């Protein structure tokens, strides 16, 4: 297999992976009429920032969604990281008597879950968390895979080091915060990154439990727009500006770009961590 062929195939496939983003970007920077006439093209036939202007003229919905998603993401990641690393640390220590039962308790959830209906009824009837921002955060705080990853990482900490600290009189909290955590920053960074990603990309909890429009996450807003359930706000003044030809398709694509923008941006700069994260994740 010639080197040329190999690289050619990989280049083509890499482009295929990136082309859809280009398609969406190009559509968002196009005039509405060009899309109606020529359809979605790789490069805009008629360049226009109308879609973005439209969104930013009446930015409430999208700004609101950004705020909601950002708060949920940051809170969720910080709390989740804390809760998960504490949990993982405790079950990584041989000396913890409850280590085995607790591990089983945690990992059993990977094998069996009650299903959607019991979950839905429990959250909405018993916990009464419908339309409550907490439901966007809480269920994802403990990700069993991440706990597994963290536990493996904590297990590899040299026990002699911890014992030395214990002999010096340090209690387990100090050992956790002053030894275990600093020695595990790569794994913690990876878990933080993937937790952030799962919060940012989430639409499932919103689909199940959120009806209040001011609590829409950005992905859920995007979904509603695609389904035509969410018309972009059009006051008469704005409608007049477009002469009755509201940029609906281009606006949808521009919205998609808002949803993917931060992720693409982060990916560009934090690629190394993304890649390292998946590699560790899939090998485990």
């Amino acid at each position: 297999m010639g080197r040329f062929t190999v690289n050619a195939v990989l280049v083509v496939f890499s482009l295929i992976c990136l082309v859809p983003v280009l398609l969406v970007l190009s559509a968002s920077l196009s005039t509405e009429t060009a899309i109606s006439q020529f359809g979605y093209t790789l490069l805009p036939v008629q360049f226009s920032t109308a879609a973005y202007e439209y969104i930013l003229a009446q930015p409430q919905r999208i700004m609101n969604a950004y705020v909601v998603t950002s708060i949920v993401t940051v809170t969720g990641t910080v709390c989740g990281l804390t809760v998960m690393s504490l949990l993982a640390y405790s079950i990584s220590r041989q000396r913890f008597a409850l280590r085995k039962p607790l591990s089983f308790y945690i990992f059993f959830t990977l094998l069996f879950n009650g299903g959607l209906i019991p979950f839905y009824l429990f959250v909405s009837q018993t916990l009464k968390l419908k339309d409550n921002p907490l439901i966007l955060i809480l269920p994802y705080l403990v990700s069993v895979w991440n706990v597994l990853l963290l536990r493996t990482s904590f297990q590899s900490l040299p026990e002699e080091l911890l014992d030395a600290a214990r002999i010096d009189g340090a209690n387990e909290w100090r050992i956790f915060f002053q030894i275990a955590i600093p020695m595990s920053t790569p794994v913690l960074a990876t878990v933080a990154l993937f937790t952030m990603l799962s919060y940012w990309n989430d639409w499932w909890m919103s689909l199940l439990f959120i009806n209040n429009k001011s609590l829409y996450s950005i992905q859920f807003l995007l979904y509603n727009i695609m389904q035509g359930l969410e018309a972009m706000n059009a006051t008469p003044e704005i409608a007049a500006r477009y002469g009755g030809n509201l940029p609906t398709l281009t606006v949808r694509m521009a919205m998609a770009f808002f949803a993917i923008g931060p992720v693409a941006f982060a990916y560009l700069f934090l690629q190394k961590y993304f890649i390292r994260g998946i590699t560790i994740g899939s090998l485990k």
Partner: protein
Amino acid sequence: MAISSGSMARSAVPVGSAPRKSFWSRLKLFLDKNGTFMLMALPGAALVFIFAYAPMPGIVIAFKDLKFNLGVWGSPWVGLNNFGYLIATPLTGRVLFNTLFMNTLFIVTGTAGAIGVALLMNEVHGKFRGRVYQSAMFFPNFISIVVVSYFVFAFLSTDQGLVNNVLKSFGVEPLQWYSSPEYWPVILVIVNIWKGVGVGSIIYLATIVSINPEFYEAAKIDGANKLDQIRYITLPLLIPVITILTLLAIGRIFYADFGLFFIVTRDTPALYPTTDVIDTFVFRGLRQLGDIGMTAAAGLTQSVIGFILVIIANLVVRKVDPEKSLF
């Protein structure tokens, strides 16, 4: 004399053993050693309880005729009736078929694709170039499925989609993609590969890279070309990994990717014949709240069969490579 009457005054102390610790002092000792750890684990364990274990009793809904005014516990018990309805409904067969069929397609195409990419990546010279390819190929995995549905829409929209435009330019009649269920197994397979093959190739690439180069050298001396080398060395040595991953995937064959079958399809009823899977079936049943007992029965069936399959899959994997199984 004094000693023996002393030990007879206390109740259950065997003569000659250490003084018996009370329950409380043993508890205190336990807490001294483990209390901190218990405290550390508490928030996480509590969350897992709330969202994974606490809802489980709701499973009984599958065996009840749920009346909302009576609540879950007050509603009448109907035994296996809901399961009976489920089996009797023609929709169920279709849903079951779609789930198993599509997942099988995903397993086969996903594995083939990932291996292909891994084999190609192995031939790439230069770390930088390899990293560039990997960055591009991993990217789709980080995009939310909602955004992916926008991509698919840009391609398959009836009037403006890229695909129809290309068809039109070739003089071919454009298709109404979102009304044609017969194309969607292929469409979803393509989307699934696009999203997952980059990341899926990692583990295969890691395995390939760890193969002893001496094998290849010996083969080259014997006159083997690239293709022969792949056929007789690389692929056979990949079989353990392939087996394990495939087994684990089969363990999850009753669970469908909800995002693919609901979001990407835009939940279009016309497409249900090929895209309605157990997960979307249960979700729709929940939304409509019509016959929630039957829906719950479907959900429970999925959980139970899924559980059995996962256990079996992991037991088999444990025989092949103990490290890779869940337990």
